[in-house]
């Protein structure tokens, strides 16, 4: 186990995942297929651990597992890592899980912070899978605010949540946490559902996104805007904010840009995003926009532009949005993904060299007929004059 992290560091940072399990007193409830929630969770974890690919860097953290008293201050500090992040040893992990006894409070916010620390701040994709049967009993800090802060600190932390027979408050809290970090929420009411979902989440975490976008901070004006090369970037944009970026462009090149703004908080029903390309002095070149309503994870827009005969060597990209939300406007902005590409410009095609359609045939037939008649007359006239001479 001790040598494992070293090996992990050698292989270009494999993605890491931490399971955070609620072992609070409420897990004693006997309401899943006639068994206690903790018994079902233990078995599900055992199955997941058995089926893990060897390369997965997995850790397990529990909350509310040791302090059985009534002192809230003590109970709300109760979270421990029982399996450190690394390649999992199934026997040791299952033994650690088997020893768990449902005990104390539910400090979700604290456990999320601790889990984020466990996962570290490397370049690897990081994922937390939070499994709980009840809402946070240690607010403040509100776990949803904690999740939003964590997501704002590092761009690569995602929290997936799983509610065990959740009630309304738990569900809303878990949905809020997962939305804030771009994760997913699922509920489980049977052992099969729990096992399947945990395994699916762990498998998903084991397949990292093909590319980790570079962080950039857009400026408020074009002159101060960062200059971007082709590639993927992330940034954050507040509601109503405009962010400027610059892209150098050579003659004969085409600029391709797309932007996705993630809806990481509850927003009003209708919203939109606008991506504009302009010259440095503000003349608009082209725009891409999209608007939508209802639930969504991201809203995207894209554009293409090539300078043609114009002498424009720098294009300003402006990202703006039309969201409205009751969530505090001062909070970190909404996550934004910007992709820039410069490729060879396409040339406008010439007129078609071939024809099609009945009219074409008619014209050709009439032309052929006329040509034939003319040729016939000409031949006759020529033969007649030749005979006379």
């Amino acid at each position, binding site marked *: 186990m001790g040598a494992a992290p070293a090996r992990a560091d050698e292989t270009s940072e494999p993605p890491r995942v931490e399971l955070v399990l609620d072992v609070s007193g409420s897990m004693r409830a006997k309401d899943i297929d006639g068994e206690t929630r903790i018994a079902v969770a233990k078995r599900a974890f055992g199955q997941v651990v058995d089926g893990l690919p060897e390369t997965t860097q997995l850790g397990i953290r529990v909350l509310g597992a040791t302090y059985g008293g009534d002192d809230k201050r003590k109970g709300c500090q109760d979270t421990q890592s029982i399996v450190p992040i690394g390649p999992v040893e199934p026997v040791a992990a299952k033994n650690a899980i088997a020893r768990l006894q449902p005990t104390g409070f539910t400090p979700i916010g604290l456990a999320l912070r601790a889990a984020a620390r466990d996962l570290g701040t490397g370049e690897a994709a990081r994922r937390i899978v939070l499994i709980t049967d009840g809402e946070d009993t240690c607010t403040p800090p509100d776990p949803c605010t904690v999740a939003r802060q964590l997501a704002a600190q590092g761009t690569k932390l995602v929290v997936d949540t799983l509610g065990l027979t959740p009630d309304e408050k738990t569900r809303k809290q878990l949905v809020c946490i997962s939305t804030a970090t771009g994760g997913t929420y699922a*509920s489980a009411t049977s052992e099969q559902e729990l096992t399947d979902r945990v395994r699916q989440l762990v498998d998903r975490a084991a397949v990292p996104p093909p590319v*980790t976008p570079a962080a950039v901070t857009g400026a408020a004006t074009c002159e101060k805007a960062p200059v971007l090369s082709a590639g993927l*970037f992330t940034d954050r944009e507040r509601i109503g904010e405009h962010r400027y970026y610059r892209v150098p462009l*050579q003659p004969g090149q085409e600029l391709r840009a797309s932007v996705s703004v993630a809806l990481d908080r509850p927003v009003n029903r209708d919203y939109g995003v606008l991506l504009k390309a302009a010259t440095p002095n503000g003349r608009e070149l082209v725009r891409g926009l999209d608007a939508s309503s*209802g639930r969504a994870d991201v809203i995207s827009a894209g554009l293409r532009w090539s300078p043609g005969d114009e002498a424009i060597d720098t294009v300003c990209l402006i990202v703006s949005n039309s969201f409205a939300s009751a969530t505090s406007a001062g909070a970190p902005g909404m996550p934004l993904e910007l992709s820039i590409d410069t490729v060879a*410009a*396409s040339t406008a095609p010439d007129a078609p060299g071939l024809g099609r359609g009945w009219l074409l045939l008619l014209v050709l037939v009439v*032309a*052929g007929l006329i040509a034939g*008649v003319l040729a016939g007359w000409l031949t006759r006239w020529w033969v007649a004059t030749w005979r006379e001479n």
Partner: protein
Amino acid sequence: MLTHLAALLLAPGAAGLSAGTSFLTAAPIEADRPVQVAAVTGDYLYWSFPATAGQQPHLTATVTLPPAADRHGAQAWTIEVFDGLRRRQPCVAGEQSPIAEPAATDITLGCDLRQIRSWAEPSDQDPLPGTYYVRLTSTEIPEQDLGLPLKVDLTLTAEKGDTGADQGTLAAPLNPVSRPGTVSADVPTPAVSPSADPDDTSAFSFVPEFSSRWIWTTTGGVLAAVAGLVGFSFTRRRRP
């Protein structure tokens, strides 16, 4: 058997059995290779597929909903298609945003794209060769119905239509960027790198690829020749 099936469904990397959760992690699909995915209500499922000029991509999705007893109302579902620049592409046919009644056991969605063009003005939104993204999700759903397990079947077909109506070619297909970018503080002096000539400089580049235009034009030439012979025969002196 059930666990075995579930394990099979959730196996990572198994072609045709997975879906992504974002544009970056979209799972690739192929035409005529149906995919089946286990998911939950509220998930955003992403797939991607390549398309070439002349194709007419057609998507059909069937969502097997959670048991009606667990649901609390109607659900609005939608299937959306985006091109490689994440621009929304309209569906010209198909039930794109159906509403599942509270008693329904499943719901079928469909989306037919326009025929992929070989070239379009940069400012056009026309479908072009490259990568396409599919996003399947529920847009309106009772809050208490989030997170319930469901199953999704997705099928892509891409008939090859006639490319004869189109001229021009795109220098590079609309594919997503797959490398992190770099930021510099100031504009670099434009290097005089000879930008690659997009034109195909081979001797036969002027010959258009085969399409119905070839048939029309050739047929027209033959008919014109026949008409010419007929016209010639009109002028012959009839023998008594």
